[in-house]
């Protein structure tokens, strides 16, 4: 498996270099921006087909070792892979309460994939749960941010695993009039939307 790190004055120049060396076309590669300066761009470029194959191998092995059947679909988005697992009977068990088990599956599969190739980043989903939940949490965050701004009263989310808390923090990061922070410990960590203090 070949993953290149290339440097150029512009993104186009760096990418062209990588494509020539890999003998691939633009739609066949994954591009990750490592560094982007005014006159220097560093990219990491890998061949999608090879990386997807590795991800599938690891995940299919995991499904099989659980003694169940199922499959995985892998797509690439902005340099990161998104792998959606669908099993015959284990989906709800693997998601767990409030996505707790999904976090464990995410951690283990990411470690197993990193062991084979440390440059491959993958987000694990099960039966589309993560995607649906993230979309819902983003909408909820936006709606309650307006509410907090209007009333000046904090809103506290239910306890959520780290990756879901991050979605809320990121969604409201640039938002006027509100700030977010976390309270609680361990599995009981909650995101709070609070009004921004006027100075």
């Amino acid at each position, binding site marked *: 498996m070949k993953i290149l790190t290339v440097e150029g004055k512009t993104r186009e120049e760096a990418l062209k270099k990588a494509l020539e060396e890999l003998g691939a076309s633009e739609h066949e590669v994954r591009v990750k921006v490592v560094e982007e300066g005014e006159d220097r761009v560093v990219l990491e470029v890998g061949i999608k087909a090879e990386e997807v194959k590795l991800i599938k191998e*690891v995940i299919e*092995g*995991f499904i099989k*070792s*659980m*003694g169940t059947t199922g499959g995985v679909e892998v797509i690439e988005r902005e340099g990161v892979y998104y792998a959606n697992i669908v099993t015959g*009977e*284990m989906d709800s*068990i*693997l998601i*767990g309460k409030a996505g*707790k*088990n999904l*976090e*464990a*599956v995410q*951690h*283990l599969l990411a*470690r*197993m994939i990193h*062991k*084979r190739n440390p440059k491959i980043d993958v987000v694990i989903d099960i039966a589309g749960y993560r995607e649906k939940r993230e979309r819902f949490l983003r909408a909820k965050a936006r709606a309650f941010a307006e509410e907090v701004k209007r009333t000046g009263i904090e809103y506290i989310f239910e306890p959520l695993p780290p990756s879901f808390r991050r979605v809320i923090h990121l969604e409201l990061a640039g938002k006027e009039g509100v700030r977010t922070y976390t309270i609680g410990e361990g599995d009981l960590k909650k995101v709070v939307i609070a009004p921004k203090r006027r100075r």
Partner: protein
Amino acid sequence: MKELIEHIAKALVDNPDQVEVREIAGERTVVYELKVGPGDIGKIIGKEGKTAKALRTIITAASMKSGKRAVLEILEP
């Protein structure tokens, strides 16, 4: 279950040949003893115990299907 633990452990360590899982079955509980090669224990434990915790979570979840409680013991090499 034994296969699942073995599979995950082997994928995480530097020396997969030295991964051993022993199953000790009780009436309601099954204990799985996981042994890895010297130097590989850190790969199983992970930063702040995160990997071991994730492994235990998955094992508990997967054991719901069998109806017996599964317990993972990670043995020091």
